């Protein structure tokens, strides 16, 4: 269960749970049951940063701190908007079962996305 995708997900969960910038060693500690090397966690966090999911900032000493760019709810809202083709010309990107969203609901989703 320690594939890169799975680790990214676990690291992201740690960052979302903390709600404040977290140092690499704290993520290692939070994922202690997986017995990961410091450099592995570093790689995972850097991959997430490259994909634009987390922000990296310099903290005290020489350590880097990582924080999520958006909340989990905002990412879910973005997927929902994608799924309903409400984000532009995405009709062919995804195939949805049937349109099921009302205008106010779509509005609420868009707002969830804007709250940053």
């Amino acid at each position, binding site marked *: 269960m320690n594939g890169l*995708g799975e680790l*990214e*997900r676990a690291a*992201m969960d740690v960052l979302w749970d903390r709600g404040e910038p977290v140092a690499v060693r704290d993520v290692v500690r939070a994922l202690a049951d997986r017995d990961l090397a410091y450099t592995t966690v570093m790689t995972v966090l850097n991959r997430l940063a490259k*994909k634009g*999911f987390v922000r990296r900032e310099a903290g005290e000493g020489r350590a880097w701190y990582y924080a999520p760019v958006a909340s*989990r709810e905002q*990412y*879910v*809202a*973005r*997927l*929902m908007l*994608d*799924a*309903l083709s409400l984000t532009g*010309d*995405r*009709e*062919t*990107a*995804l*195939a*949805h*079962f*049937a*349109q*099921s*969203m*009302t*205008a106010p*609901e779509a509005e609420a*989703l868009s707002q969830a996305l804007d709250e940053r």
Partner: protein
Amino acid sequence: MNAALHLAATLVLCVAAAGPLARARWVWRAPRTGILLWQMLGLSWALSAVGLLLALGLASYDAPVPVALARWADDAVRGEVTPAAVLVVLGLLSALDLAIGLLWTWCSVLRVRRRHRDVLALVARRDDAAPGAFVLDHPQVVAYCVPGARSAVVLSSGALTALTRDQVDAVLGHEHAHGRERHDLVLLPFSALCAVLPKVRLARSVARAVALLVEMRADESASLRHGAQPLAAALRRFGSTRPPEGALGAADVAVEARLDRLAGLPPLPAALRWSALVSGLVLVSTPVSFLIW
């Protein structure tokens, strides 16, 4: 001039047939035949539109289009250009426009999907109630497929609450059919056509007709495995979350059509299916025979 006449006739036939075919209900009874027919019609249209310009521009060479095009290019390199060259250049440019439109649409679709999959990997979970699918925690009733080499089917937790087990299976069957049969690749050229010809209403109604047939094909596949009843019930469940007042949008019309079909439209007899396909082949063979020699 012979080639130009044939190509012009094919072009007129394609444009004239597109409107009635987009409104036709009989294709609902054989969605796969309908999709193939549209693909052949679209290909004939594109080939004969480009071919007509080339054939007119190259008429003076009195040779098959590929041969004449090669000679024309030789002449053009030597600086011997006639006024008819405008038509040849226009033909080549429109071919290029169509190709770029296709590529552009494909790239933007891939970009959206990659991003979508990346996010999905972080926030979706697996659930025993929806085997083989990703589940998103959101109250909205949503089900969709992210097509690709390994397509992903996604269901919202709202859909899991709203639907019975049978209905969930039917919806998953529908979405898996989209992924398995790569319906996104069917839709791609028609979306590209809309992007290349944004002002043309016919292009949009054609794209909508093809999209409906693709949904019907997925319905067909799902109802073979899981029955038409649960699928229709799920469709109604999705529809009922929309506001009751106001005019029906395109999506509602499509849902109504799919419900009509599931309620028991008889499949089209094989003889009719085959004659439709043969007509399509005859149509597409005209431009192909003049352009690929």
